[in-house]
């Protein structure tokens, strides 16, 4: 490894692949573009590992490598550098993004093997990797914002990848517009911060923030709330979560990479990155915690009644992101990032497994037309079961450790109500995930006859990533075991980043060991209850589910229609805006603007009506005028 850290290579490699794909993609062929995309991300992953090892070799207090690349702009006193920051937090993010990203790239070579436009697919996917890595490695809000918008763009492009399907095009637009609303808040937050402190470089900002921004003051509260609005857009929290379920119109590996494992966690990362500011604004933290807790439960209830396999997973993603915000809000930032990492493993696995099922069933996504697939898709089944156990929070799978840490963090910080919300959400999560599992893999087959014929296990390019992710979902949580005095290894790794704040993840261990043990037992009990009920309702006595649905038909309608949130937004926001735009178009645009433009034209036409009579088109007439002119001139000169 050379002397300079060369962090910029991590995002630059996928960008290089984008440029190569643009220049030579048509000559590389289908396998060539896939190999190029996977290779670039793979090398980027290896480079991330080497960089992180280098970071780990430094003494604990110096674990932050800042690498200026060049000066982006210099205006008066303001100078903005493009510089990258590798510290324990961005190291975790870079490893997750490149690692999971690489697996999903490999998976995509199998999943998209029959798509005619595979080159464009990998182009977008690599562009996404570049933007996401810029986002997590940026050493300032401005560069972070570049990545932030870049991933938003790639998300839009990939949701609408099959643009000839109207639903996909609509979903892409919806994702983009809803994210714009959040980004609007994000930008205002940046402006506020810049006006108050004069810098957007993270380390300078965090150093001056405690002096310049009075704790609990209006400025820092407004700025952090605006930043959080951006996070709710990107990370699909109440009130801006509606785009994520629709985003499932994109190819399934895209859902796994962008809309589950990486991009949607950008909001959580941003809040964790700016924890110094959030800790100066207790009100904002409280808002973050409550929005997160409410979203966790709210989305979980919607997930109970969805029948599209990907939509169930989408609502589950919204719900899990809520847990991460809940953790950040109660000050347990390390727990939030821990859950972000384990969630990336098992949720990517769930989506890729769902993709494998969809692939096997010739694009069937409806749970009601699945069932009994366990023996026919043995690898998919086994890996999906691991992921489902992980998200349900059953020890020793990864999700158990991180979710438990969040819940005990909430409990320890005194947010008992949030803890109850989280516990209820955990039980619901276990229930709807096992509902999905049972409806897909257990029981008897409800496949359509044509799907029945083609059922086949996926090719190795798809199974191997599933397997790797299953191993990660199995052991990934072991870096953060509970009940360890002084914090577990993962928390200690992140400690240099979060140490500056008060509370920090020490909050996660402020409860006595006995209490923590009790909390763990309670949440495992909740998960087991959820699982048992799912098996009872959907496998052992299917009548239970029907009976329940009939008895609670009102509630069921509410849930299956997603609380009519989309309809509400449509009525409150979309239609009024649309109507106003129509009115402006009809009056201002067609009458006023077009009126002026056309009026100028008509005025000249009218004024020229007389002059036009002289232009007869006959040469004789022109010659006559010419002669008359000469005669007139002659007379004029002869008179004097």
């Amino acid at each position, binding site marked *: 490894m050379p002397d300079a850290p060369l962090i910029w290579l991590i995002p630059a490699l996928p960008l290089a692949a984008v440029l190569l794909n643009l220049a030579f993609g048509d000559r590389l062929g289908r396998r060539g573009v896939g190999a190029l995309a996977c290779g670039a991300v793979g090398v980027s992953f290896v480079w991330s590992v080497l960089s992180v090892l280098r970071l780990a070799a430094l003494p604990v207090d110096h674990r932050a490598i800042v690498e200026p690349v060049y000066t982006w702009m210099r205006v008066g006193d303001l100078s903005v550098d493009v510089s990258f920051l590798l510290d324990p937090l961005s190291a975790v993010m870079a490893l997750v993004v490149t690692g999971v990203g690489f697996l999903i790239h490999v998976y995509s070579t199998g999943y998209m093997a029959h798509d005619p436009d595979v080159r464009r697919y990998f182009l977008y996917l690599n562009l996404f990797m570049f933007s996401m890595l810029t986002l997590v490695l940026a050493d300032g809000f401005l560069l972070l914002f570049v990545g932030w918008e870049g991933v938003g763009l790639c998300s839009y492009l990939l949701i609408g990848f099959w643009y000839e399907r109207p639903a996909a095009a609509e979903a892409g637009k919806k994702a983009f517009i809803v994210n714009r609303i959040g980004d609007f808040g994000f930008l205002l937050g940046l402006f506020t911060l810049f006006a108050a402190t004069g810098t957007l470089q993270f380390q300078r900002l965090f150093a001056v923030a405690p002096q310049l921004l009075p704790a609990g003051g209006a400025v820092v509260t407004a700025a952090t709330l605006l930043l959080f609005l951006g996070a709710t857009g990107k990370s699909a929290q109440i009130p801006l979560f509606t785009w994520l379920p629709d985003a499932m119109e994109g190819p399934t590996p895209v859902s796994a990479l962008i809309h589950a494992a990486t991009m949607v966690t950008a909001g959580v990362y941003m809040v964790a990155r700016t924890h110094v500011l959030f800790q100066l604004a207790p009100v904002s933290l409280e808002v973050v915690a409550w929005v997160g807790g409410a979203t966790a439960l709210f989305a979980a209830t919607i997930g109970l009644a969805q029948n599209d396999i990907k939509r169930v997973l989408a609502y589950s993603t919204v719900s899990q992101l809520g847990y991460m915000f809940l953790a950040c809000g109660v000050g347990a930032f390390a727990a939030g990032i821990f859950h972000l990492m384990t969630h990336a493993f098992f949720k990517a696995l769930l989506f890729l497994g769902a993709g494998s099922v969809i692939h096997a069933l010739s694009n069937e996504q409806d749970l009601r037309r699945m069932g009994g697939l366990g023996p026919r898709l043995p690898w998919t089944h086994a890996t999906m079961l691991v992921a489902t156990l992980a998200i349900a929070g059953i020890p020793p799978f990864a999700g158990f450790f991180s979710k438990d840490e969040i819940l005990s963090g909430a409990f320890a910080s005194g947010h008992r109500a949030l803890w109850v919300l989280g516990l209820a959400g955990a039980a619901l999560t276990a229930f709807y995930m096992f509902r999905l599992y049972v409806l897909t893999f257990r029981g008897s087959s409800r496949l359509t006859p044509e799907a029945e014929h083609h059922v086949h296990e996926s090719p190795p390019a798809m199974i191997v990533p599933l397997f790797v992710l299953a191993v990660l979902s199995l052991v990934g949580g072991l870096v953060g075991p509970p009940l360890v005095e002084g914090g577990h290894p993962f928390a200690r790794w992140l400690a240099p980043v979060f140490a500056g704040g008060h509370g920090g993840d020490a909050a996660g261990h402020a409860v006595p060991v006995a209490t923590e043990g009790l909390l763990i037992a309670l949440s495992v009990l909740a998960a087991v209850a959820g699982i048992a009920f799912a098996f009872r309702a959907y496998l052992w006595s299917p009548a239970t589910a029907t009976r329940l649905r009939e008895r609670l038909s009102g509630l069921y309608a509410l849930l299956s229609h997603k609380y009519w949130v989309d309809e509400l937004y449509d009525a409150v926001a979309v239609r009024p805006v649309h109507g106003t735009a129509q009115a402006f178009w009809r009056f201002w645009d067609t009458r006023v603007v077009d009126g002026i433009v056309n009026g100028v034209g008509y005025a000249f036409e009218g004024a020229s009506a007389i002059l*036009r009579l002289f232009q007869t*088109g*006959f040469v*004789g007439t022109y010659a006559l005028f010419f002669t008359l002119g000469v005669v007139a001139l002659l007379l004029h000169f002869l008179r004097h």
Partner: protein
Amino acid sequence: MIPLSWLLLLSAVLFALGVVGVLVRRNALVIFMSIELMLNAANLAFVAFARHLNSLDGQVFVFFVMTVAAAEVAVGLAIIVNLFRLRETVFVDEINLLKG
């Protein structure tokens, strides 16, 4: 010795004939000939004055005019030939594409 006034009168008559020819005839070739007539009327006036004033300047001017006229004939005839190839007519009132 013919008096100057007679020569100038002849020149004026020829010039007027040329002007009328340009204005009333439809055939581009005839219009062209009328223009030549006007040029030569001017030439006649030049040489008349040259003799009257005992100066060579007018004669030199005539040579210039004839040179320019020759060049103009070459270009003008080329235009008319091309016009005929394109429109199969040399009547100027049928050539009115530029009418506004």
